């Protein structure tokens, strides 16, 4: 068990900087999920914590020890790799127990611990098999068991579920969360699957192009995205965006089309004349008869999602989507009104992409999901 603190951590490969000054404090026992698109530097960050990659600048501390110059084996981290990286010539038991063997644990104790850990992840019957004789899910469990048996202070996961089918992925997700709760290590989990991130995390770290865009609980990040990037990345179906200019007099944002979208008077007062991006989540908009809404759009087509429907509209030359629970039958090309309540509007600075607030962001006290 240990906290992790990163101060201005940077990584360059030759002249290319791929991680640009990451600051992050991870509390003891926390489950952190690092979320970001492919190539944003998630794995690099994780590998720097593990010690598999050197740190170009900055400082990483685990517990109270600065680990910049420590070998991986001295850091007390265990890692689960995306492709599991099981030793193909060793049996399941040998794979799980390898760290203990290297550490010189006596054989009797080793065997007892292997059996206990294997049983805890449901591998009791497979101890004599080779990894090649296991299914994907079983291999995944071996990789987990290999990490658990070391009783690490820190658990690192690099997209460990991405090779599994959808159902197994959900199942293993729950199992990982259960294991985390049981052994109470600090966990850092890297993924590009936002659903995985939202459901697993105590706190989410959203990364983009080597910088952290936002850190917060999943609900904070969903409700108050700090930038257009986070707004667009988190949430499925994705957020709708419109450009306009803030007008204090009507406390609204004026779009190029002349339409106005109401925003809270406090925001309008502070940001008069500012060019902004408006973000509206598909489920926060409602369809109303043409002419009665905030905007008038043209219906294009509908996607059935089972629990609801996703309606695609054309507004000017933009596609907007509305997620609604009810099933309406609309003809393609039919005019539709869209109602956008002021409370549903997220405002972002058009130049910087940063969230525009009425007042400095209040600290939101929320119980982790």
């Amino acid at each position, binding site marked *: 068990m240990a906290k992790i603190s990163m101060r201005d951590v940077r990584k360059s490969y030759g002249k290319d900087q791929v991680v640009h000054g990451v600051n992050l404090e991870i509390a003891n026992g926390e489950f952190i999920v690092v979320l970001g698109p492919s190539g944003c530097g998630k794995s690099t960050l994780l590998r720097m914590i593990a010690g598999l990659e050197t740190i170009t600048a900055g400082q990483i501390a685990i517990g109270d020890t600065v680990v910049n110059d420590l070998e991986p084996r001295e850091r007390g981290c265990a890692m689960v790799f995306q492709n599991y990286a099981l030793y193909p010539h060793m049996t399941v038991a040998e794979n799980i127990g*390898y760290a203990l063997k290297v550490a010189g644990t006596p054989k009797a104790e080793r065997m007892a611990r292997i059996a206990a850990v294997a049983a805890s992840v449901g591998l009791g019957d497979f101890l004599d098999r080779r990894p090649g004789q296991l299914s994907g899910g079983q291999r995944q469990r071996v990789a987990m068991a290999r990490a658990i048996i*070391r009783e690490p202070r820190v658990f690192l996961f690099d997209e460990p579920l991405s090779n599994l089918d959808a159902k197994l992925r959900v199942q293993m997700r729950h199992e990982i969360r259960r294991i985390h709760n049981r052994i109470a290590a600090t966990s850092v989990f890297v993924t590009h699957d936002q659903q995985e991130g939202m459901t697993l995390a105590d706190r989410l770290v959203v990364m983009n192009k080597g910088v952290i865009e936002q850190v917060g609980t999943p609900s904070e990040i969903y409700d108050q995205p700090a930038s257009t990037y986070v707004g667009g990345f988190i949430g499925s179906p994705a957020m709708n965006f419109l450009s306009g200019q803030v007008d204090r007099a009507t406390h609204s944002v004026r779009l190029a089309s002349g339409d106005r979208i109401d925003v809270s008077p406090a925001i309008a007062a502070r940001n008069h004349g500012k060019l902004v991006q408006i973000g509206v989540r598909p489920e926060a908009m409602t369809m109303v008869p043409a002419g009665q809404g905030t905007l008038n759009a043209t219906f294009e087509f509908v996607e059935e999602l089972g629990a609801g429907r996703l309606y695609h509209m054309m507004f000017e030359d933009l596609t907007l989507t509305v997620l609604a629970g009810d099933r309406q039958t609309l003809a393609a090309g039919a005019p539709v009104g869209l109602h956008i309540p002021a409370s549903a509007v997220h405002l972002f600075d058009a130049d910087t992409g940063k969230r525009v607030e009425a007042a400095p962001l209040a600290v939101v006290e929320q119980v982790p999901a």
Partner: protein
Amino acid sequence: MRRAYFKFSWIAAVLLAPQLMIIFVFFYWPSAQALYWAFTLEQPWGGGNTWVGFENFANVLSDPYYWGSVRVSVIYAVATTILAMGMALILALFADRQLAGYRAYRIGLIWPYAVAAPAVGLSFQFVFNPGAGIFSYLNTLSPGVWDPSVYPWQAIASIVIAGAWKQVAYSFIFFLAALQAIPRSLSEAAVMDGARPLRRMIDLQLPLLTPTFFFLLVINITDSFTDSFGIVDTLTGGGPFRSTDLMVYKIYTDGFQSLDYSGAAAQSIILMLLVMALTFVQFRYIERRVHYT
């Protein structure tokens, strides 16, 4: 497994013909000739060959010189194989760790494979020559201690070193390729498990190299039985006192210098059977212990 079946076609036959011709002219025909000679004897005063059955084989196998030749061939094969594969493995492990300058010696190490055996033998003349070679330094310390043309064990050591030097390159390439095919994440997993480089080498790299190791063992043993002629011919000429008279070399001297075609042919057949038997044994008993992953 999917298989494709093709109908017989003239185009295929024509395209195959050159390759088949080459195999026929350079392999089947000489082999058939050897078989013919091995079971016949040329009459002393001409008049064709007479069938003698296994008499040629009996003569060869009752010749103490032949058994001497077998003994030294086995010593040579085992010694060059161990030396060449051991060196190749060590070099490949270092090249794989990407120690400083590994690019340079990776290329440097591949060259010897392209050098013809007689050229290797000639160059090693300059190394082992008791008067002028590198080893002649020993004679300045204590006159007469080094002379492969006098001391049989020194002659054997010379051909072993030259033969191994030539074979190192081939094994090195395969070992290096196999090492580089081990996924990096495996080594990283072992690093996370706390294993240091030497430990990873023993627990991870060497076991994963076993298929390559087995393949190279077969190739090296076969090569050292059949491909040593050039080195012996240029370096020792089979001497001193027949101490380096390897089986291939003896076939050549008996056949082309003593003009005993029948004896040489019988020896060729025996050598061929020996190599086949060795390969069989290796596949039967060693391959089982190999982890194919």
